[in-house]
């Protein structure tokens, strides 16, 4: 094993080890926060080093940076209280595992992916629910682990299907979205924001590796599935009462755009990855903002705590900016796709299908995002609740995600 192999593994194992240590120790929250931020800084440095010395694809680095930024924002926004130390360990573990997936290849990457899926599975199983839904999720994850680990040893075509299964799991496409939705729903406090970014990043990485081997027929099937997924997820978002499920459904709806436009715009890494990262940051930002409110008031139901913009102006500003961004999200892939590369020949039916997909996502998104904004930021604030606005660190964290989305969507 040479340095180019060891270094990425080390980069992944370091936060993983830190996370495991924190999991079983009782340290001060302030210490964990400082160490966590330092670790992320070091990891970022490591990535820069990798870029300069090792030949690593820019898109991979971009994906890894996105995860680092998300982790940084979540840790940075934490208050220095004892119980928040329970957040740091999972962040570090997941950070390590996901970096391991991104920065490595072959069996090593798969092992890390298996580890990540195993961690997700354990987290799911920890929640007391014994419902049919949980069983399906558990089965799904088990299958994903098997395919992830076994894909190295099976033939190319089967490997492709295994990768596709993992891709539709991590870049959630209905009906493969259940693990994603379940994870987001059950995530503690601000972890949901981090999970959204991690899931999508891993999914984008999988799709990036897989894209070139997808046949036309498969792309067609995926685009049909994307249409169904977008419609289903948009309708689900409209009716969602819980903020975590709302964000999860909205994410699934927008991710469908990626799958749907694969058929139209070639060179997925050029438009798909920036769009995916933008989407991850925007949804992660909304989820982060919601989690701050949930931490304060234990509220997770949309509409139960309206009018937050007045007593919590920072929250109001952040939410309005995030929603405004989200409303224009569907335009980005179209715009960047059209600008960056020539399209392949599109038949009439495809235009209808793609237009319909776009409209479902865009109009649906407009509807439910604005509805959510109305239920959350606007209206009359309750007089029996003492409001505390976002702290500066929280506001900076959300703003950083927003800026990251802006960079990814408009500049990169």
């Amino acid at each position, binding site marked *: 094993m040479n340095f180019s192999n060891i270094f990425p593994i080390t980069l992944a194992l370091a936060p993983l080890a830190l996370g495991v240590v924190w999991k079983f120790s009782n340290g001060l929250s302030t210490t964990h926060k400082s160490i966590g931020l330092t670790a992320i800084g070091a990891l970022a440095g490591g990535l820069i080093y990798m870029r300069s010395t090792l030949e690593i694809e820019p898109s991979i680095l971009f994906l890894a940076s996105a995860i680092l930024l998300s982790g940084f924002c979540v840790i940075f926004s934490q*208050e220095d*209280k*004892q*119980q928040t130390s329970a957040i740091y360990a999972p962040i570090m573990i997941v950070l390590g595992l996901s970096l391991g997936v991104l920065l490595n290849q072959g069996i090593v990457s798969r092992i890390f992916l298996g580890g990540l899926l195993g961690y997700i599975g354990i987290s799911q199983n920890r929640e*007391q*629910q014994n419902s049919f839904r949980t069983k399906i999720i558990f089965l799904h994850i088990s299958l994903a682990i098997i395919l992830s680990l076994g894909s190295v040893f099976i033939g190319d075509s089967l490997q492709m299907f295994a990768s596709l299964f993992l891709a539709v799991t991590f870049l959630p496409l209905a009906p493969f979205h259940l693990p994603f939705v379940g994870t987001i729903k059950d995530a503690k406090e601000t972890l949901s924001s981090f999970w959204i970014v991690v899931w999508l990043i891993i999914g984008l990485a999988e799709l990036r590796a897989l894209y070139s081997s997808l046949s036309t027929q498969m792309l067609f099937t995926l685009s049909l599935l994307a249409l169904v997924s977008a419609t289903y997820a948009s309708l689900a978002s409209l009716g969602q*009462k819980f903020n975590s499920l709302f964000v999860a459904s909205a994410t699934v709806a927008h991710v469908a755009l990626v799958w749907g436009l694969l058929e139209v715009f070639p060179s997925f890494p050029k438009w798909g990855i920036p769009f995916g990262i933008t989407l991850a940051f925007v949804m992660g930002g909304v989820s982060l903002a919601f989690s701050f409110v*949930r*931490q*304060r*008031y*234990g*509220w997770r*139901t949309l509409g*139960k*705590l309206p009018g937050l913009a007045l007593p919590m102006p920072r929250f109001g500003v952040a939410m309005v900016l995030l929603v405004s961004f989200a409303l224009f999200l569907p335009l980005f892939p179209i715009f960047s796709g059209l600008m960056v590369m020539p399209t392949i020949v599109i038949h009439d039916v495809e235009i209808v299908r793609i237009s319909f997909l776009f409209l479902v996502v865009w109009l649906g998104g407009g509807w439910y995002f604005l509805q959510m904004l109305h239920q959350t930021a606007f209206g009359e604030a*309750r*007089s*029996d*609740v*003492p409001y505390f606005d976002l702290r500066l660190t929280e506001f900076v964290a959300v703003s950083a995600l927003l800026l990251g989305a802006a960079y990814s969507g408009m500049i990169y």
Partner: protein
Amino acid sequence: MSMLEDKKGITPSESQRIELRSLVNLSCEPISHFWPMKTFIHHNPLHGLEHLTFEDAIKEGQRFLRGRGYLSNSEYRKYFQQSRISKNSINEALKDVSQNASISIGEREFSHQEVLRALLIHGAGKVATDVCSAILQPSLNQPEIRDLFEKIHNLSKKNATENFLKGHASREKKDLATQYTLAEWCDQTFGTNVQDQINGEIIKWLGGFLDEGHAPWGMPERKKTFYKAWKELVLDDASGSILGIQDWKNKILNLPNRPEDAVLESLSLLGIPKNLWDSYFSLHLAQLSGWTGFIKWRSEQTDYAWQSAFPIDLIKYMAIRLFYERELVMLACQEKLAIPGSYTSISQYLNNHPTGYGLYKEFRSRVLPDEVVNYLNMSLFAQDPLNIEDLDQCDSRLISVWEQTREKQEAEGKTLMVMHLAQSLGVSIQDVVKSTPDTLSSLLDWVEQFPESQHGPIWLEALESSYIKGFAKKISPNLEKLRKSDEIEEQPPESRPLSQAIFCIDVRSECFRRQLEEIGGNETFGFAGFFGVPICYQGFSSEQQTDQCPVLLKPKHVVKEIPRASQGKAAEKFLEGQQIAKTGHTLLHDLKENVVTPYVMVEAIGWFFGFKLFGQTLHPKWFKKAMSWMKESLAIPIRTTLTVDKIQREEAFEMVATKHRAAIYRLFTEKYDQQGAAVPHDQVERLRKLALNQIPSDSKENEELFRLLKWNESDLGQFIVALRKDFNLHERDLDYQIQQITQTGFTVSEQVNYVETALRLLGFTKTFARLVLLCAHGSISDNNPYESALDCGACGGNHGISNARTLAVMANNPQVRQMLAERGITIPPDAHFLPGQHDTTTDEVELYDLEEVPATHRKDLLRLQHDLQEAGEKNSRERLSRFPDVPATKEIDEASPLTKIRSMDWSQVRPEWGLSGHTAFIMGRRSLSQGINFEGRTFLHSYDHSQDPDGKYLEIIMTAPMIVTNWINMEHYFSTVDPVVYGAGSKVYHNVVGNIGVMYGSQSDLCVGLPIQTVFNGDKPYHEPMRLFAVIEAPLERIATIVGRHVILQRLTGNRWINLVAIDPDTKKFFNFRLMEDWQPIN
């Protein structure tokens, strides 16, 4: 036994209908009248509840109208922080609610009052149950907080009450039809919007029916009354079908013809028990209290033209409302619960399924705690209709887990409250934890018994107490001076001031009077703006008459404005010009409102409106000047006078006869030229009497006419017909004209009475200056539906100049002066009464009837005009400092131009503050208030108790101006404490509807009360809501006697709608009137 039967199918009897109508009218008691906006009348929105105490009336208002009666506690706390409320005042206010008890926490002892004070000043710290856990969670790291929580939790377990899930059903059974209607119950239970649907339909129909000339196309069939018109027209309205009402048209057709019968039918279908009808009607009427108030007012106006033409009353309104409710409630209940939408079925449902219903309510309002979600199939809540049986039979563990969760949440809430209270009291949590369970329990009970919803009355009391003490302190220097001057036995001889001015009692006059007096040589008085002369006024060339008096009075005298004798020709030209202008205006209006012509009109003359639009917006002053110049060039100036003197009947007849003779001559010359003109006067007179049927037709006597004009009988007959038809020369017209003429004006003795009353009431019976200004007031603003609210309330919401001119004419009448002298009031011959009007927006004072001013008074007049101008400028400067949109740091060199711009700026939502900020009404000598800057917050009525030994004049003041100021005060009070329900919200969203009022947006209740811009400065109240302090300088017994004679005064004072304060003339001390014979000194 009630005569009203609710059996379907039996036609109600007439007595049942009458009883129902009475019940509906009685149920409208909580809703006050709403006058059309053309003459805005300040009134108490809870006027119908004045028989209750102030606090109780507010509670009733809250129940029916959902209106708040006090400012938010946070606002009062700001006042406390600003030292507008003192600690002593709070202690005094708490005396009535505090017990003689104390608790020990740590080493300190706290009385009940101390704890209540802490709760008042710092709040109870009560937090909503659903967020308690999250808010407390961070603090549970601290051991003392954990201990406190445990202690409180154990206490709560001991005091656990009934199953809270079932509490929903039992509460709602009790409140149904008493606290809310069935439609409201549907909305709060199912999340429907039945109430909005009902209101939407009602507003649509009312807006059309009650329109008074605003709509280009009036609603048809209005003559048939509201109910019948609706019944006919709604058949073509698809809204019923759109709302989902099945078999819409047949249901309408099957409705009874009588509205009373329709009400009874709806009540029967809704199943409302008879004993709840009155509260149910009140709840319904309160839904759209503005529209209801207007219907209530209009139905009582027997001589109101619109009501006579298109009748409406509360029963017709109720019939339609209840019809919509019964149909929509039926729909909602069938869909959601599969039960009929009636009171009985809903009550039965609640009775039979308390657990399931409680679960459903908890799910809808608070969402289920995570702990219980596992025990429940969540899809049950999403079904339509609700499968209540399944919910009833939910896992029993769920109920206990839920109870436990709820208990825990309540304990958390109480923990937060105790933590907050500990901080307020300055004790540590450890001390609280160490205290005995009884102490903790007492503390919690005290907090429960004094919730924040009950703090309002205490704060108000404290605010008022602080205010009156400060007020008394402010006046005390003047009181000292008065004491010294009253003690002097020999009063120094009085000298004539340079001028005297009688202003309205309005608060805006207070500052102007102060400025005028400070200039020197001017003496001022305060009197009701109508100057004690209630008249029905008709302006020149106007067809409308306005009642220039408080709404409490009905004027008996008509006064018309007519051109002066020398202005005959000018008047004719003026009228011609008016006619042309009116025709042009009508043409323009028709062109704009027509369906097709606006398209062409915009192209043709749209640019002209652009001139107006840009001019008004960008440079209002310049635009106004240009328009004034145009008006002056085109208008014919007319000098007018008023018909104050009553014309005797004989003279009236002669006036009409002269008019008739002139008409006959005109007809003669038209038909017969010179021959006609040569007809002798006696023949003309004969013809006149023939036309009026005053003499029989005699052939012999007619011969002269026949000879002169070569007539026969037939010609005579035709001529008389022409006289009757074309010149209205007939008996009926004669009677009408005589009545009109003799109704106008006052007899000399009436004039003497009015002048004497006015002067004696003011204590103004000697030392008259050469010029006495009777200064009325009015306001000018642009694009302001509330313009009338800024005018004189004593003049029925109009400008008061006509009253001032009337009194001036009377007071200048030599005959009147002669009779006054006989009664002991000698007005010097050189004293001239001059009418004027103070524009409260621009502070300009315009003088009228200057032709009457004697030439010898030229210099006095000049001096007065100069002083008025100077006072106006100073007053504008003072007033401008109170406008939030005028920068505080700006040096105002010339204030008048700035105030003028405010009066002509059509975007200005606040041309002036009006009566906002008022607090007190002083009835006493001017020396009591002279020189004190009340900041335009005080009504001032001149009154000298020494000249009123039997209290006759004080009684007039207390039963008229004081009542009016109380109404003004209550309107401002309630508009401030609840700008949405009792006020009119923001002007920005107002739309004028039907020429009667304004709505919010495109469709809403009629906005009652004052807009937010009148009483608020941004989000802070500008007007400090307090009950009016009526401060009277008079012997206590005299005041008490007057109160005892009038039920209305007993109600207002006894029920604390007004704070009656007396200044004892002997001791110069302040006393607060509590009950009859109970005067409490104010320290």
